[in-house]
């Protein structure tokens, strides 16, 4: 409470100091700053706008940001890296010295659930995979990107990552990486021709090696469906609610894709999975850049990467496998204190900036979303990122999907794997399955 009062007084003095403001505005803003909530919504809206302007204008003049604690959640393997970067940042910005920043290891997968369970106890700044963004926005766990940085963020990162960080026209997060896509890693001594799925599988079968792809994941599955031209996307409003679904899985193209999945599942070389560290006896694996080092260990000198192969569908046509291009994002949670929010925004903006993205690439190999960083010679020299780049031409930037979609897709994949859907099923049977899938997908949007 004390802190709040202090902040309010500071804000009030600051506003008063702005000679440009009219008398009426000053009172309004001061009221707001003093945390008086009136029942009149109009007054609040007015005051809010004014205060926002005032804060933005005055941002450069604030010298005392108060004190506090800021919690940051990132994946375990970048905890040390993040700590070092934040230290550098704090040294360069003594005006934020009142804040202590702690970094905890909470993976991008877990962060969203835990943020939603208890927003107030969650991290102030946290990294998450983009598929969680809509859920986080609707649970009130994400603040819009500070207008101070918004234009820069939009200009400096690739278009896909900005789309991923946007919900209903509002930019809600700072793009961190642009490498959340997948491609093929293979063992040169096993796979002779990485451009055809049939040949890869045959080579693996012949060598007694496994071909890994996580077909029961809604993320990898789209490699088949998008390849044959199916569509699956959602529209959201700015509250993070899903308003409309565009799905065309229940079509002839969908049946071709599903048949291909069933066929792949029928191979004795096929294993469901995408974590190189958990895989055994690997001949080839569809995986992402984050597993680059593990795969290098696995294959040793035979390490090679390529874009995803193409496959020959049951209709005789050849399709290039597609999939999602995905992104990791850095979010700031809504704050009850303007000044702390400023500090959080500044840190997040720094951690997602060009310099740090490049440093992160050099340290742990995460592919940057920052356009300038992408253009650097180190990044360009990376084989895995090159393969990802090549694959990018065939992918669909991943938009927003309801959380239920992912489990639904896992259900579809599991149904293929456990033989609920068989290769002997008629097209009508497959169509019925896809129709049900599609209806459920549409049902998620209201």
């Amino acid at each position, binding site marked *: 409470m004390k802190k709040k009062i202090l902040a309010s007084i500071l804000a009030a003095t600051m506003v008063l100091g702005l000679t440009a403001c009219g008398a009426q505005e000053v009172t309004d803003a001061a009221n707001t700053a003093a945390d008086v909530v009136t029942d009149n919504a109009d007054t609040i809206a007015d005051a809010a706008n004014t205060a926002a302007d005032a804060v933005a204008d005055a941002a450069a003049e604030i010298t005392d940001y108060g004190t506090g604690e800021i919690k940051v959640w990132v994946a375990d393997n970048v905890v040390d890296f993040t700590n070092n970067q934040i230290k550098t940042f704090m040294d360069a910005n003594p005006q934020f010295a009142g804040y202590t920043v702690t970094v905890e290891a909470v993976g991008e997968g877990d962060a969203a659930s835990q943020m939603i369970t208890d927003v107030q106890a969650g991290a102030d700044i946290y990294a998450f995979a983009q598929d969680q963004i809509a859920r986080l926005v609707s649970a009130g766990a994400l603040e819009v990107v500070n207008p101070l940085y918004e234009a820069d963020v939009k200009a400096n990162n690739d278009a896909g990552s900005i789309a991923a960080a946007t919900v209903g026209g509002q930019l809600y997060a700072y793009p961190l990486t642009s490498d959340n896509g997948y491609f093929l890693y293979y063992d040169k001594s096993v796979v002779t021709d990485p451009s055809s799925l049939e040949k890869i599988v045959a080579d693996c079968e012949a060598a007694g090696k496994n071909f890994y792809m996580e077909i029961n994941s809604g993320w990898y599955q789209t490699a088949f469906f998008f390849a044959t031209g199916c569509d699956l996307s959602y529209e959201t409003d700015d509250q993070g609610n899903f308003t409309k679904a565009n799905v065309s899985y229940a079509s002839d193209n969908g049946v071709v894709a599903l048949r291909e999945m069933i066929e792949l599942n029928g191979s004795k070389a096929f294993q469901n999975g995408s*974590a190189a*560290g958990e*895989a055994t006896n690997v001949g080839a694996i569809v995986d992402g850049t984050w597993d680059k080092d593990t795969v290098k260990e696995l294959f040793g000198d035979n390490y090679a990467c390529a874009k995803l192969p193409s496959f020959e569908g049951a209709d005789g046509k050849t399709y290039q496998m597609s999939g999602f291009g995905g992104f990791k994002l850095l979010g700031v949670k809504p704050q009850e204190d303007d000044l702390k929010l400023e500090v959080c925004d500044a840190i997040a903006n720094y951690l997602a900036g060009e310099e740090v993205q490049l440093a992160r690439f050099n340290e742990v190999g995460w592919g940057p979303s920052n356009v300038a960083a992408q253009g650097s010679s180190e990044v360009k020299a990376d084989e895995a990122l090159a393969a990802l780049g090549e694959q990018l031409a065939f992918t669909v930037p991943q938009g927003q999907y309801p959380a239920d979609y992912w489990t639904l897709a896992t259900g579809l994949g599991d149904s293929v794997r456990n033989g609920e859907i068989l290769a002997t099923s008629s097209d009508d049977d497959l169509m019925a399955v896809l129709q049900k899938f599609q209806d459920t997908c549409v049902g998620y949007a209201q």
Partner: protein
Amino acid sequence: MNTSYKKKRAAGNAVAYIALVIISIIWLFPFIGLVLQSFRSYDPAVEYGGMVDYLVPKHFSLDNYRFLFSGQTNFLRWYLNTIIIAVFVAIFQTIIILCVSYALSRMRFTGRTFLMRFWLILGMFPGFLTMICLYFLLKQFGLTQAGAVPGLILVSVASSGMGYYVCKGYFDTIPKALDEAARIDGATRARVFFTMTIPMSKPIIIYTALVAFMAPWCDYVFASYVAFGHDESYNVAVAMTRWVWTNDYQGYFTRFCAGGILVAIPVTILFMCLQKYYVEGVTGGAVKG
């Protein structure tokens, strides 16, 4: 006649021995596998540390154990947390169960049967139901995240009174005449409880404490809920299941095995030493229902 009977018995015993050996192999296999995996290095220069499809490592190494003790993770902290929780829960839970059991076994007061029935009904609700509520209750006292360790102790201890069955069953078998005699001699209830009942209940006290001590080692569900986002408050179960379940920790499988061995050792030794009491407790509990 005599020889054929003997022969038959010898044959029967041979079959029994074979069966027992097979059973032993099946039962020991996972533990042997666990131990062997824990000696496989995760250092790529030596051997691959992720999942492999062979049992015996190609090189024996202590890398995993070195990793756990090296301070690269908070393993020692997690271990300490778990021991703290286990010890305190064992102590307080035993005290509470003894109190409740004595009151329900020896004293007759209004509401006694109501209390027992009510607790029985409460026990029929699944425990996970109330997780979110308990979380926010603990948060109110500041016992989540940084305070998760005392928070977990509090929650385990607070509801332990409902697990009085086995202990009360044991008290019921101690003749009431002993109490009566002491009370005629002028001893108060409290005196009887402290100087007669408790000294006579060593087996059940050990059993209760042992069961209470073992439970926190496996508490993943609630502990992860209460401690989330605060590495220093994790217990071994919360911290180490991440190594298996989360993709952030690929290639940690051998380290998980080594950690698992370290977790299993103290609990197993303690259990083996006190096995006699455990058997008495579960058998008694089973007959009483």
